[in-house]
């Protein structure tokens, strides 16, 4: 028992340290890429760290309409993000938390985070935030089936229900036999990734227009440390879902935590650049067209499932 604890606890904190240290740089890289494509200097890549630190140092303003729910929202979304990353294998080894079925918990933890973010948004009694919550509700609910079907494809290929097995070395072999299915899943996951992280073409994180945003408008009234938690949580979410994508596309062979972590980090930087390029070359979808886009992702993931099922 004590041996298990002495192994488990350091792994836990190592994972958190890595994620907390790496994740804020990713939005910074996206912003830098966008600036670079647009021919601008752009903010330094470490700007998100500065923002978070600055926000933690600030005071906060609360609306008189709000209740404890408004204050609980950021805490829950940050905790959920921190819990979810424990299921992601960083290096070539297993994640600190792994069991058969952890992929379901992984997907649902984000659901908890979303639920409380939405209720916190509605707590302000503002039409803007209601609008954001309504959009978040519908789009995330449509992205969910695509995510699950994608995970199912991977699970079927890996023969396991654990994220650590799904994203293991075995993927290399699977790529060599079932490349089409994996490509379909990757495409679907990119869509889910963009949706969940409120990126163009689903959402435009940079616009200041309350009427068109999704995620940003939900957190309009949060300030100070609460906003810092939200920003940090969304960076961690970017990391977690991004790591899922990177691990699929580039299965990490072996290596310890830090060597594998470095490879993963490089992959995530690449993903951030890719997101920056996507944001620089695509217009945002009209809101009414987003379900269509997500249905497309769902169909791709479903096709992936069919291919793996038919291959048996």
């Amino acid at each position, binding site marked *: 028992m004590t041996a298990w604890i002495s192994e488990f606890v350091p792994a836990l904190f190592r994972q958190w340290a890595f994620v907390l240290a790496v994740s804020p740089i990713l939005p910074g890289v996206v912003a830098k890429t966008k600036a670079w*494509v*647009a021919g601008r200097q752009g903010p330094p890549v470490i700007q998100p760290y500065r923002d978070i630190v600055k926000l933690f140092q600030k005071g906060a303003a609360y609306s008189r309409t709000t209740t404890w729910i408004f204050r609980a929202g950021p805490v829950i979304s940050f905790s959920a993000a921190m819990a979810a990353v424990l299921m992601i294998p960083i290096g070539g080894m297993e994640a600190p938390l792994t069991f058969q079925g952890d992929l379901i918990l992984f997907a649902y933890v984000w659901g908890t985070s979303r639920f409380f973010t939405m209720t916190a948004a509605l707590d302000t009694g503002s*039409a*803007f935030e209601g609008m954001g919550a309504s959009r978040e509700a519908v789009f995330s609910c449509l992205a969910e089936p695509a995510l699950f079907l994608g995970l199912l494809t991977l699970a079927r290929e890996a023969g396991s229900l654990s994220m650590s097995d799904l994203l293991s070395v075995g993927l290399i072999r699977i790529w060599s036999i079932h490349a089409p299915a994996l490509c379909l899943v990757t495409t679907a996951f990119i869509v889910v990734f963009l949706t969940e992280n409120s990126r163009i073409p689903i959402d435009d994180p940079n616009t200041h*227009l309350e*009427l068109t945003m999704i995620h940003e408008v939900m957190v309009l009234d949060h300030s100070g440390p609460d906003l810092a938690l939200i920003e940090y949580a969304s960076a961690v979410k970017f990391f977690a879902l991004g790591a899922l994508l990177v691990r699929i596309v580039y299965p990490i062979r072996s290596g310890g935590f830090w060597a594998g972590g470095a490879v993963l980090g490089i992959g995530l930087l690449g993903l951030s650049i890719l997101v920056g390029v996507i*944001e620089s070359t*695509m217009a945002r979808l009209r809101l009414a067209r987003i379900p269509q886009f997500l249905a497309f992702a769902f169909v791709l993931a479903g096709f992936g499932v069919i291919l793996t099922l038919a291959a048996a």
Partner: protein
Amino acid sequence: MTLDALITQNGAAFDAVDVPILSPEQFRREILDGVERGLRITAYFGERIGAAKTSLVCVLADDAENSLSVLSCAVRDRYRSLTPDCPQAHLFEREIAEQCDVIPEGHPWMKPVRYQSVALPIPGGTPFFSAEGEVLHEVAVGPVHAGIIEPGHFRFQCHGENVLHLEIQLGYQHRGAESFLETAPSPRSMAVAESVAGDTVIGHALAYCNVVESISRCAVSPRAQALRAVALELERLSNHIGDLGALCADVGFLPSAAYFGRLRGEFLNLLMSLTGNRNGRSFVRPGGVTFDLNDSMPADFQARLKAAEYDIQSAARLMFETPSVLARLEGTGAVSERTCRELGLVGPSARSCGMPLDVRSDHPHGAYRFSHIPVSTVSGGDVYARAMVRRIEVERSIQFLEDHLHDMPEGGQDLRNSAGPLRSGRMTICLVEGWRGEIAHVAVSGESGVLRRYKIKDPSFHNWTALAMALRETPISDFPLCNKSFNLSYAGHDL
């Protein structure tokens, strides 16, 4: 002409007493007849005469005949409103009610325009139109906006994302520009005229100068006229390109947004080379302009225009050929041609509904009398059409500038003539096609060289209502896009 009115031309001065004074009933019928025949109300204002009397003056533009008709009537404290039969009069009548305390009876929408009258309520005190239904909600945006833009309050009646109705309440920027100009022309009044709308410096300055020149019968040299046209077109170019960039930014399409943002700077810089100010301030003055082009500058301008034109072409092609952009623009915020006609829209907003309205060709003034710019119209009335009109106008303006700079009239010492004192009892109507559309300045001079009544009409005054109409049955998330596609002036409306 069956119209019982004084027929005049853009920029011509006439004796104020020549304007026929009709009975209110006749006045009303003449206007309705005129609008029925396709005329537009270009200006409509009241002037207090005596203790309890107000004279209503209406200027109708006949775009086909290139003429303007002026008619007036005298009323006491109320008259029958034109609005139920002629919607384009609605804001004018509300403005008259606010300025002169004359009540248009039967006006369906008596709400404050600028909160400038003591009789009408303060901001926030007017009830907004409210649709019934428990599932509906209201979205209130403004007067403080998230972007750095001017103040205005927008009230949406929504079912979820769909807007049933939008009501726009402006007036937060009222500064009293008209009353500042009701003096003898002075450097200060020039500054006021240039500040009517901060992004239409040349347009409003030009209109004011035309008024002063016309009443004081001052001639402007051909070279000064040509330079004024160059400045006006540069202003149009920089704003249109800025709008195209802003549209791209609103749909989240960054490459074109960044491109257009830079190109807008190119034209502001050109304007700076010409006028010494990126917005063109202190350039247009009564009697002429303050700066000339030296010998090398036309060639330099042409080269810079050429280079910019190439870049604009590629940025515009990128914008108009990317399906994801088109999908956002097409069919969004459509205004029908009928609405356009009934509300009397002007400028690119009208041209995007297929209405060939352009002061530069309908009521040409200055250099436009000699060199023409084709009117650019697009049908559809949606955001796409409004973007397309801007794109075409950009191309044509650049073409115009290139031709124009190639053979500028020779000029000597007469670049800026002195205007001389205003003659008394004269009236004039000066229209200028600013980048937003028809700017109308109407002035009546009084005794001893002062302007007795000065009326400014920014194109936004017509077009704001069209934005509200464009939003009907449109997703609220498309509002910023629609708003940007009209890009109307709050300051120009609020004066």
